[in-house]
């Protein structure tokens, strides 16, 4: 059975939004679980939470700060985030760093679809969360959560690297509070999931034209 999720060298009370994590854990406890599966699950979640590889994705200002946390002073390699993959197939989470415009929105959705499960989304900065200063623009999406499900929000314009690391740790906590086997914390049923997986997201069938325009 899962106890509280802990992050090395940061106290549980120092985190915000503990209620959310507790709610997730409560859901887990309700059904009870097999000891062996539970232990195996703990190991898997421990592994997954410590090896989250980001997709190198940045549209604007926050992208530079994203590079800064990869660089020497902030160094997110310490947490195991370091292997930034350029191919969405190999990434574990996408850090939406920057404004998402109307023209970019289908591309972002496509990138998200191209990622392999389990995958997570972090909305970084005011623009990705709500449209930020450009909310009233004719060409800006007011919040990426309208397009793809968001796991962690990191506010700021742009957020400081420390804030980004905090957000990444929150994501680690969330991953730890999930259950890989049994699919309890998933929002949709296994069948629905399978169906959506097979669903073709391209409206147009002619694949010659659309082959790599999203990812590439």
């Amino acid at each position, binding site marked *: 059975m899962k106890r509280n999720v802990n992050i*090395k060298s940061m106290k549980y009370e120092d985190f915000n939004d503990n209620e959310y994590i507790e709610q997730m854990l409560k859901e887990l406890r309700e059904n009870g679980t097999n000891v062996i599966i539970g232990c195996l699950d703990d*190991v*898997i979640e*421990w*592994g*997954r939470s*410590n*090896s*989250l*590889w980001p997709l190198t994705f940045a549209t604007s200002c926050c992208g530079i700060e994203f590079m800064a946390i990869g*660089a*020497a002073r902030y*160094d997110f*390699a*310490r*947490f*195991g985030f*370091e*292997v930034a*993959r*350029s*191919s969405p*197939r*190999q990434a*574990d989470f996408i850090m939406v760093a920057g404004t998402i415009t109307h023209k970019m929105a289908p591309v972002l959705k496509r990138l998200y679809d*191209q990622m*392999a*499960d*389990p995958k997570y989304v972090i909305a970084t900065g005011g623009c990705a969360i709500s449209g930020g200063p450009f909310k009233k623009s004719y060409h800006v999406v007011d919040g990426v959560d309208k397009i793809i499900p968001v796991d962690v929000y990191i506010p700021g314009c742009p957020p400081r690297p420390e804030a980004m690391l905090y957000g990444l740790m929150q994501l680690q906590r969330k991953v730890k509070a999930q259950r*890989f086997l049994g699919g309890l914390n998933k929002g949709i049923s296994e069948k629905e999931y399978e169906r959506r997986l097979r669903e*073709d997201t391209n409206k147009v069938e002619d*694949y010659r034209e659309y*082959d*790599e325009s999203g*990812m*590439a």
Partner: protein
Amino acid sequence: MFDFGILTNWIHTQLTSVMSEGLAIFLECVIIGVLLLLLYVIIAIIMIYMERKVCAAFQCRLGPTRVGPWGSVQVICDVFKMLTKEIITIRHSDKFLYNLAPYIVILASVMAFACIPISRGLEILDFNVGVLFFMAASSIGIVGILLAGWSSNSKYSLIGAMRSGAQMISYELSVGLSILTIVVLTDTMQFSEIVMRQADGWFIFKGHIPAVIAFVIYLIAGNAEVNRGPFDLPEAESELTAGYHTEYSGMHFGLFYVAEFVNLFIISSIAATIFLGGWMPLHIPGLDGFNAVMDAIPGFIWFFAKAFFIVWLLMWIKWTFPRLRIDQILTLEWKYLVPIGLLNLLLMVIVVVFKLHF
């Protein structure tokens, strides 16, 4: 120097005393196979961890620190992650080849890995044309990479695969030539024999000028052979996103990833074996006391120390040097390394014929 052959022979006699010889050999093969794969995985984990720490050190960073002491368990986490990650099937891809490709790459890598003599008596594949077998086995990997690029139905993958085809096949030549130079010196192609001949001095010292040239060529070509920077064109991150494995996810990608690192280790350990004496300790003829002290250190430590030293050297090069362009890579090979390699071979023949070596 402890000979592990005594141990293995003892196991063999024990087994044959309780069962028929055929069964015993079969059993031994299974055990060795399992051990080989285990060692392969351990080497992969060590290599990935080393890569992260070494590159962090070169880049004024810390590298992984959170999981385990100094982040040493980091790679285990990655393995769990990889294993539980979805393997995506691509529409419009050639499914059979697409799924086959990573296994070909890993197969080639394991076969080449089996050739490495780790210590005296710890050779898995050791026969009279071992060098030839090693060359043949390691080049199967190219097929896997080409298949991966072709079957993914992605233009980036295809360009990556074409690059790797052009690059790896070319550099195979230089690797072959520089190994051949040493074969001329030793007149044997058996890895264990090559190591034994270095008892009175490593080949890089014995063969002096031609051996040093061959060593440098081997390092360059070997680095290119395993697609490591500055020759990492097939997966050039900033050009082709991830090159030939762009479309691979989950453990299929993991196999490519692991094979890349173990291939680096294989190339390094072959360099250590044929140029730096493999598990043979440093012997200086005439200094018996010194030689005895060196002999006290077990062979496999010598071997791993040498191999990892070369790995470290290649990592240093990778993280510092910018990437070459495809035409520059081919120019370097065909206009410089191959002619130099051929002349060097000639030079070595002259050295051997006139007994100019030590």
